[in-house]
């Protein structure tokens, strides 16, 4: 099947205090997740500006996932609550514009949840792979 041939490019914005450590734990525990996931470390999930997400799609990402601390566990008390509202509205808007809603996701992954990190990434990569390449939010110039 084509799904196994095609490897989507995934950008994962990971909070320094939880999900990034969760990714570390996944590695330490030798839990496999696809190499197509490119992690960008951010100080808090609420550092992620909607523009970052759109720019990732522009530059060739097929899916963007944002990982932060569980609600209530933010290192800065409330950052991820703001993330939750922003992304709820942004994702709903992208969906409204006809961008496939499966290409964006927010997951809460703590530093202890290495297994959840790997499982989340595996699932997200599979979901995006099934959609195929991102055509609707790409900038053709980047492909030169």
């Amino acid at each position, binding site marked *: 099947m084509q799904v196994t041939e095609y490897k989507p490019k995934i950008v994962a914005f990971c909070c320094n205090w939880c999900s990034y450590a969760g990714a570390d734990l996944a590695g330490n525990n030798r839990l496999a997740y696809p190499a197509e996931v490119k992690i960008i470390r951010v100080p808090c999930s609420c550092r992620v500006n*909607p*523009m970052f997400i*759109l*720019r990732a*799609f*522009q530059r060739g990402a097929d899916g963007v996932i944002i990982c932060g601390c569980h*609600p*209530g566990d933010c290192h800065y008390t*409330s950052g991820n*609550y*703001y993330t*939750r*509202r*922003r*992304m*709820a*509205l*942004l*994702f*709903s*808007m*992208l*969906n*409204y*514009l*006809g*961008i*496939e*809603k499966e290409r*964006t*996701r*927010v997951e809460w992954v703590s530093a202890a949840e290495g297994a959840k990190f790997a499982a989340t990434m595996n699932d997200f990569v599979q979901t995006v792979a099934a959609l195929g390449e991102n055509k*609707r*939010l*790409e*900038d*053709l*110039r980047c492909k030169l």
Partner: protein
Amino acid sequence: MQALTREVLLDRAKALFADGTVDRAYGWKRGEFDYDVTPGLFRSVEEMEKEFVFDDFCGANFSKYLVEETRKGEGKILVFLKPCDTYSFNQLLTEHRFDREKVYAVGIPCEGMADVTKLKAEAAEGIRSITAEKEGFVVHTLYDGDKTVPRTEGLSERCLVCKSKKHVAYDELLGEDGEVADSARFDEVARLEAMNADERFAFWQRELSRCIRCNACRDVCPACTCETCVFNNPNSGVESKAPVTSFEEQMFHIIRAFHVAGRCTDCGECSRVCPQHIPLHLLNRKFIKDINAFYGEYQAGAEVGSRAPLVNYTTADLEPGEAVQRGNEHA
């Protein structure tokens, strides 16, 4: 036709100039034709007597001009505010964008403003003059005689679904205050939500691809008061003077709508000024509709000092995944 005449407004302005309450006034200036009214700053009663107008073509909202003008001079500025303008006025106050003490706001009722493009479309090219009569807009054309456009067909879209005839800010009110209306303004958003993703994408591609990136939507927007816009900032990496690809058109409009989400009062100026008639208000209204559905009813500008939904949260907010699902259920 408007409830108040030019003379009522002019007399009040004259009195305010005369007793020294104000030393300049924002008002609408007569154009070359009946419909091309220019927002302007008057510095004397004489100027106002000569050029001031108030009729069905006074759509321009003065709130944003106050941001810069209140920084100049010591005297007060008279500003006439239609009900929808008062929401922008309040929102700017909430964001501490101008000094309230330097403004004298006079609320005036509004019966809806005309959309000249609609009148031109209804009455072909060549308009000699337009008069507002009881039965509608009578367009005196150059070549096809007089044509009457029913009022409901000649009004701007934003006025047809007017959200409020109530003034939420003023120092004094001329005429009667109205009520917050039960508006059908989200119907068009719901219609889009009911489409499938491909149809929605096609719709927005068709609309946004006309964008010439003149920035009129941003420059007129009372919520867009950044000193340097991210799209003008050479260090932002997204500065661009032209939408080179469909991605750039989309990004500009998504980000702009997002930047005003929770602060947009739905005044509709963006769609009014768009030279390509892109229904930009449908982006803003989607955010407003979602905010209402997810976080409770919120009208930006309804009161000074209210906390905007995007700088607020509750621990029980819904997850982004659910939001996308619910945003699709047009209730």
